């Protein structure tokens, strides 16, 4: 791995672009999860007694933070990174300077995770204003969503590195992201699933993000903290290494 501090110059490049459109970008990222949270939380929640020992909207809050962090990281690592890699040839321009391809991929990874963190934090703020959090321990969600952003950014970059066109990303969303959103305890407790699927859900990164975020927001002490963090970290490291090697095969041949 040929990594250096220059990866941060790549991060700063993306940040400078984002800064020009920061406000509409944040508001745009908020709209979709808020509709889910209010629509399902109040609409569906009104029909439900308590879910997991709390109101449905409070239950859904943690899932919404994690799912929208995942979506923000995935969109950035897929569509936006692919524009820079394939359409604008920004990566090639950067690699003519003393920046390695590994630096570029690392810069993209950190950037997508940063942007996802911002997205998740904005929702966390709205949730806190609604009184759906319990005390300062909710702030522990911030490092958690950064790690979640890293994991999904790394997975997304693997797909980007082999994508022939934007259409390719549809498969990733319909075959991976959408099913995962439904099976990771975002909308309902995992124990509602058949036993075999509960086991399978343990392999999904979003399950571990939600597994930590929910108790943190409900004022409970999370269990198996180390296990959740380990899974997200291992996925990040393995997917990043894969993304780098796939990108090398595409660009340095």
């Amino acid at each position, binding site marked *: 791995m040929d990594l250096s501090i220059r990866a941060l*110059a790549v991060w700063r490049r993306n940040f400078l672009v984002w800064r020009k459109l920061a406000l509409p970008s944040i508001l745009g990222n908020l709209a979709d999860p808020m509709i889910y949270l209010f629509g399902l939380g109040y609409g569906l929640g009104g029909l439900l007694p308590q879910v997991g020992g709390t109101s449905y909207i409070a239950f859904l809050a943690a899932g919404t933070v994690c799912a929208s962090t995942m979506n923000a990281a995935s969109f950035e690592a897929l569509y936006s990174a692919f524009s820079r890699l394939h359409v604008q040839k920004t990566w090639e*321009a950067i690699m*003519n300077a003393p920046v390695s391809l590994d630096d570029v991929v690392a810069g993209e990874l950190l950037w997508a995770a940063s942007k996802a963190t911002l997205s998740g934090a904005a929702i966390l703020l709205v949730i806190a204003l609604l009184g759906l959090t319990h005390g300062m321990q909710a702030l522990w969600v911030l490092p958690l969503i950064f790690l979640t952003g890293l994991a999904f950014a790394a997975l997304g970059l693997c797909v980007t590195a082999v994508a022939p066109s934007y259409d390719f990303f549809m498969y990733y969303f319909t075959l991976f992201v959408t099913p995962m959103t439904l099976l990771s305890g975002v909308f309902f407790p995992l124990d509602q699933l058949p036993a075999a699927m509960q086991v399978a859900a343990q392999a999904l990164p979003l399950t571990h993000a939600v597994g930590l975020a929910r108790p943190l927001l409900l004022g409970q002490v999370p269990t198996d903290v180390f296990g959740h963090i380990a899974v997200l970290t291992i996925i990040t490291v393995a997917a990043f290494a894969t993304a780098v090697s796939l990108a090398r095969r595409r660009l340095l*041949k």
Partner: protein
Amino acid sequence: MVPLKVDALRKSYGGHQVVAGISFALQRGECYGLLGPNGAGKTTTLRCCLGLTAPDSGSITLVDEPVPARAREARMRVGVVPQFDNLDPDFSCAENLLVYGRYFGMADTAIRTRIPQLLEFAGLAGKEDTSIRILSGGMKRRLTLARALVNDPDLLILDEPTTGLDPQARHLIWERLKRLIADGKTILLTTHFMDEAERLCGRLAIMDAGRIMVEGAPRELIKSQIEPQVVEVYGEDAPGWAQAEAGAFARRCEVSGETAFCYVDDAAPLLDHLAARPQLATLHRPANLEDVFLKLTGRDLRD
């Protein structure tokens, strides 16, 4: 300093040799041209030199550093103008230079001090805040050239710098490149425009099928590789005439479509002969680099 030294470089893709053992070296302060038709291996050679692809064999020294082993260190002191524009469309002219300078580890203040003079050099003075999206093709190329100079490189590598530009824009780029050469910059240039190579390059190599066919100063190559005079004969009857009669006057005669190119040492007898055949149009000119290029690489289309 050794700007660039390439020795016995080879690179294949899928069993096809794109670069088939080439060697050349640049001297400090010269403009060296790599000429060749599409697919001759020019761009692959440049990618190897920059450490962006690993050669199968051979050695490369770029600004005193072995490549690919220390390609990153070497690229610190090299500027690159790629074949296709890849400026950042989301940025203004000044932001493009600022962001690119950061890739070299330069401090923002140091880059900002250089921006006015770089834009001035590119003929874009006062366009700091102009968006890339509204620049013409020529302006984009000049900004790309300015971007390649942001780190004040010892060696400038230009991959077909004027492809796709109109004559006005090309002349302006040439004028700027001449200024850089006069300032002592070393330049490696690939092109398939012969006039560009003749104007700018002190020495050049003509490549085809991954090999260097000849190397030398443009004037010397014209003198050594080809007859000094060319008579072009046009018209419906030109191919027939060339087959029947050209041999008596020209050492070599090539027919392409309805034009016969006659290469001669002394044009006078041929011109007298043609004067009596008004149905054939003629153009008499000295031989140039394009004649050398076509003689060595053939007239067949490269796709």
